[in-house]
């Protein structure tokens, strides 16, 4: 129906100025972390962990987005596929930083006695020790160091391996004669990955986040974390596509593609709210002390996060992105993407910080500086990866469908 447009080999150029922005952000991050350590801030490790997990899981969300596109053989998203690919390439960095932070905290914790994870105090598991904790000791089958290390190694191996695999095959497809064959290969890989993702994303949420509040547990936590990380990844995709389109680098993305991304942002914001509220309501209703304590801390000392995340991550997307016209504007996607991104950063902050520092938290320049540092690194890795390949992936069997996409 529409005129077929010329697919040009447009490339994003990662300019020196743009690189400089990332380096400045990373420098701010480094200064913040060093200052944080120098002033003996008790929140340093928690800040590091919260930001690291946030960006790591966003990269994971990008990989998951990619996998569902392959598994369900979606046509429209071919034109924006380079973005989730680039996001997923942050996974090795995120994994390395996570290991650094965990090891660093374990070593410094030996002398200071402040671990990120409560259950790292081995006295809790020792029945002879006066600090023996019956509840934590009961979880020793899962929460023990060797098994924890095996699990973490397994997650990172799976995620990084698949991120590299998808990226490698996708770039190879650009100059390949057998595009369909490569597509089928990636499709088969995505089936396996989605199963592994279902397991690892849930376990990862328990290991990295839920075990901070060692006494507490929620059966919905894996899903809740998954929804948060996926919305975060979609927000990044929305912002990246919006900016690239406005720069004229994504002519193959029309308003119908933008609407699809807007729909993802809108739908998964509601999905996040659904899980966020389900987890809260069941615990609120049943009113069991050991469960409620988790929310008591957040309600009493982190109230601002509660109210803000609800409005930023639910009320704003549902009211602003509800109309069709809003979803079709690249500027609107950028604004909403940034807003939701910040909202989910706050969500991860309130998931991790209360368990580590309790009521004595602060959100000053050191916290924001650390976040900016991580963002700078994430931005650098992502843009560097986008610049490496052409904006439009060629030779995909669904290429034409993506170009002709209308809603």
């Amino acid at each position: 129906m529409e005129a077929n447009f010329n697919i040009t080999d447009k490339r994003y150029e990662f300019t020196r100025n743009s690189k400089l922005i990332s380096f400045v952000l990373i420098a701010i991050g480094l200064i913040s972390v060093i200052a944080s350590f120098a002033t003996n801030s008790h929140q340093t490790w928690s800040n590091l962990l919260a930001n690291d997990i946030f960006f790591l899981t966003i990269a994971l969300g990008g990989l998951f987005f990619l996998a569902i596109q392959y598994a369900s053989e979606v046509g429209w998203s071919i034109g924006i596929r380079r973005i989730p690919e680039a996001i997923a390439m942050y996974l090795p960095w995120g994994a390395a930083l996570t290991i650094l932070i965990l090891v660093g905290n374990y070593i410094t914790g030996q002398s200071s006695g402040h671990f990120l994870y409560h259950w790292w105090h081995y006295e809790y598991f020792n029945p002879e020790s006066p600090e023996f904790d019956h509840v934590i000791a009961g979880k020793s089958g899962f929460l023990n160091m060797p098994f924890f290390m095996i699990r973490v190694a397994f997650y990172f191996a799976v995620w990084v391996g698949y991120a590299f695999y998808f990226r490698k095959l996708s770039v190879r497809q650009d100059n390949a004669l057998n595009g369909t064959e490569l597509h089928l290969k990636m499709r088969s890989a995505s089936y396996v990955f989605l199963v592994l993702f279902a397991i690892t994303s849930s376990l990862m949420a328990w290991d990295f986040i839920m075990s901070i509040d060692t006494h507490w547990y929620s059966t919905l936590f894996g899903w809740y974390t998954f929804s948060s990380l996926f919305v975060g990844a979609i927000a990044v995709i929305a912002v990246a596509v919006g900016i690239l389109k406005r720069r004229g680098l994504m002519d193959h993305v029309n308003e119908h593609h933008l609407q699809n991304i807007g729909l993802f942002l809108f739908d998964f914001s509601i999905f996040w709210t659904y899980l966020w509220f389900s987890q809260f309501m069941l615990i609120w209703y049943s009113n069991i002390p050991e469960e409620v304590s988790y929310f008591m801390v957040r309600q009493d000392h982190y109230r601002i996060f509660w109210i803000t995340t609800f409005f930023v991550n639910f009320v704003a997307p549902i009211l602003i992105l509800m109309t069709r016209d809003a979803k079709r504007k690249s500027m609107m996607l950028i604004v909403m993407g940034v807003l939701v991104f910040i909202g989910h950063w706050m969500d991860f902050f309130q998931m991790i910080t209360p368990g580590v520092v309790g009521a004595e938290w602060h959100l000053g320049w050191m916290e924001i500086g650390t976040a900016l540092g991580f963002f700078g690194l994430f931005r650098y890795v992502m843009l560097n990866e986008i610049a490496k390949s052409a904006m439009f992936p060629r030779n995909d069997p669904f290429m034409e469908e993506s170009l002709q996409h209308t809603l």
Partner: protein
Amino acid sequence: MSNKKLIYGVFDEEDVLMKTIKTLKENGIAVKDVISPYPVHGMDNALGLNRTRISICCFLYGITGTCLAFLMMWYMNIFDWPMDIGGKPSFAFYKNLPAFIPVTFETTVLCAAHGMVITFYLRSKLLPGVEPQVIHPRQADDYFVMKVETEESNLVTVEKMLADSGAVEIKY
């Protein structure tokens, strides 16, 4: 007004129908409506129809549902018979709000869905007792019916155009 006449072209092919709409449009003849057994992609644009406002209706019905649910829950559980919800005898609406959210959600969906369906029926005159407008017996099966309104003097030209472009039947 009086010399305006309706003419119906019956088609059996989607592509032929779309092409005919285009040629009629180019000749300055507006197609009033098309009766089709299934939604045809791009038909709205070809006919130049306005965008549906049913989504706005949906939003308003939804808001109505939310308000109704809040009113109902407040009346039943706070005002008329104060309930101790989840071991928290606060008897205040905003403090018991989490318990009311599922009901509110359901009522919102109920009102929005039913409101939209009823509005759609009313708007397209599909009510019990209304005489169905059957132009061709196969119009809800596999035939498309095009409704063109034109001046009486122009009738022959339009008829010729319809016949030339491949209409299966032409009716008045």
